[in-house]
């Protein structure tokens, strides 16, 4: 078989699987909607209209896409070496805390640009630091990264709540609405009409390109992959797996921290309890659904962002809970895993047949 034919048949099979997975998820979601006594078509329509129906809605989608994609970029590094960086959620939060800390210093300052730049770097450092703690607990303490990361997520959430109700509380009343809003010159500059930060968008695109280049063309990317697929082979290359695990965690945390930083400077302009908005956890699903591919991840992130933003309409219009988006996203990943299993088994069967021929 010629290679072009091979690619064509592969492409055909992938798209057939994708369509099948989508049909299954669509049927499942419709069933759930009927179970809840809701009109399925109206629900789908409102999700679509609520996400892509207008320019304003689209800007909300992109605002969700930015942190989702940044977290996904970071997770690609940790997944590559086989680490389950569930702590990404907390890394976003700590990035936001560090950014807020620097911006608070800049409240009275006269050079807002300086503080904005420093706050961004601080956010990256904060996320990386939080990831590094999980990394050290894994490499030195022998604690599985899932438990270390998860514990640290809860700790980060507690730190944010303590700051909002304690040292950083608003003058007069402390409340769940967050800290005092920053003055306008400490906001990331945005396109006025749709309130979208161009800098945040640019940074995200840069992050995708850097991640793609790093993973594909640098030694670090090669070593992460080598260690991820076979730790036993590490000593043959004279590699220290622990060092590369920590390195992967630093990258993952750094990107997550950047996401948290942009959430503060570009979206909320203050620290709020739900600053991470579950984007970290969701990014884990994004990367899985994208089959750990750096170019597919942003596309999946965009689709997920549409679902998240669009489903906000559901409580208002149809009196449904907005968590329908999470159900669809989870079903998609499960369907993708099932398809993956199916492909593996049919490949094995083919191999089996050809070995007898």
């Amino acid at each position, binding site marked *: 078989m010629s290679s072009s034919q091979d690619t064509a048949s592969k492409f055909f099979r992938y798209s057939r699987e994708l369509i099948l997975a989508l049909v299954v998820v669509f049927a499942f979601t419709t069933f759930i909607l009927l179970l809840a*006594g809701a009109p399925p078509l109206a629900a789908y329509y409102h999700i679509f209209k609520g996400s892509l129906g207008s320019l304003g809605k689209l800007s909300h989608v992109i605002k969700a896409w930015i942190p989702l994609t940044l977290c996904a970029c970071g997770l690609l590094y940790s997944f590559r070496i086989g680490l389950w960086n569930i702590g990404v959620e907390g890394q976003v939060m700590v990035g936001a805390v560090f950014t807020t800390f620097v911006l608070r210093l800049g409240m009275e300052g006269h050079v807002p640009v300086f503080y904005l730049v420093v706050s961004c770097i601080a956010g990256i450092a904060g996320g990386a630091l939080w990831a590094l703690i999980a990394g050290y607990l894994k490499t030195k*303490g022998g604690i599985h990264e899932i438990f270390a990361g998860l514990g640290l997520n809860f700790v980060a*959430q507690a730190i944010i709540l303590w700051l909002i*109700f304690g040292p950083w509380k608003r003058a007069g009343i402390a409340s769940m609405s967050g800290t005092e809003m920053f003055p306008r010159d400490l906001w990331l500059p945005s396109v006025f009409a749709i309130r979208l930060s161009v800098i945040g968008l640019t940074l995200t695109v840069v992050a995708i390109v850097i991640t793609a280049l790093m993973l594909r063309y640098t030694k670090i990317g090669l070593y992460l992959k080598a260690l991820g697929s076979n730790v036993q082979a590490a000593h043959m290359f004279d590699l220290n797996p622990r060092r590369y695990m920590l390195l992967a965690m630093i990258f993952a945390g750094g990107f997550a921290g950047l996401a948290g930083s942009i959430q503060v400077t570009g979206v909320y302009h203050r620290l709020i309890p739900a600053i991470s908005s579950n984007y970290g956890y969701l990014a884990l699903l994004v990367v899985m659904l994208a089959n750990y591919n750096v170019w597919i991840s942003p596309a999946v992130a965009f689709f997920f962002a549409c679902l998240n933003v669009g489903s906000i309409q559901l409580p208002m219009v149809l009196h449904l809970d907005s968590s329908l988006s*999470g*159900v669809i996203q989870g079903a998609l990943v499960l369907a993708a895993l099932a398809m993956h299993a199916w492909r593996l088994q049919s490949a094995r069967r083919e191999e089996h047949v050809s070995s007898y021929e």
Partner: protein
Amino acid sequence: MNELNMTILFAGVIAGAAPILLATLGETITEKAGLINLSLDGTIMLGAMTSFVVAYETGSIVMGFASAAVVGALIAAIVAIFSIYLDQSQVAVGFVLTLMARDLAYFLGNPYTRIHGPTVKPLSIPLLEDIPFFGEVFFNHNLLVYFSILMIGLCWWYIYRTSNGLILRSVGENPRACFARGIDPKKIQLLYTMCGGLLVGLAGATFSLCAKPGWGRPQGAEGTGWIALALVIFGGWHPVRAAIGAYLFAFLQVLGIYLQGWFPSIPAQVFQVAPFPLMIFTLLLINIVQKESVLELAEGKMWMKSILGVFSGAMPTALGRTYKTD
């Protein structure tokens, strides 16, 4: 409320531990068979929602518990089938289901939020309840609390004293050898993952029908599944030690309520978080204890050995590694 009353405190610990105890025992059984079911947190939520809605609609609490058990077993079956028969990462499937089951619970439970539903009534045991202190602490609860305490012994007995328990443990230790003895490890793993999930589902029902009655977003059971997963490790994969861990955790939780009364300026969520750093700390201790240098240090010192013994535990050898027939 701010006065520390020992009887109320300990009675609260015994009652509050019931759901997390059931979840921890369930996951211990699952992991003994060599599988990790990471979906606990979502399973508990979906179990809580299902049981509340079913009990509310049918008016039967028994039906509520039964439906939660079915839900728990079904989710566990998905994890097991994906990992055992479809060769997919059990961690990945478990994590997806954690989020998905929770969201499904929020979505389907939406019409039933903040309404008054059926709850399990307290059932004090005659005569025993009259014993001072102990009567109040142990024998004045609802049926689920007694059930959870009974389950500790039952799990221990089943795992360590029956031939089925021997098979369960051997599948978790060496599935290949089991296969050679004519036992299908895959079937056994599927079976016990579902049994474990059944208990986790019941844990969810215990939340919405007794411990934190009702349904809502948030329900109040969020995060428990993760604690239970950590408690299994804390318990060294032994049901009795895991149960002790569950009671310790419940003690911390109850203590948190008192602390909150004493420091009203600190938000409640901060105290609720306390178990998590503690979990990391105990996991750290468990690992330090197993280091050779520490074991050498303890050589010949009885007191040190007994301290170390508390924190040691053997993981089922084949845990997390899916068995493949070849």
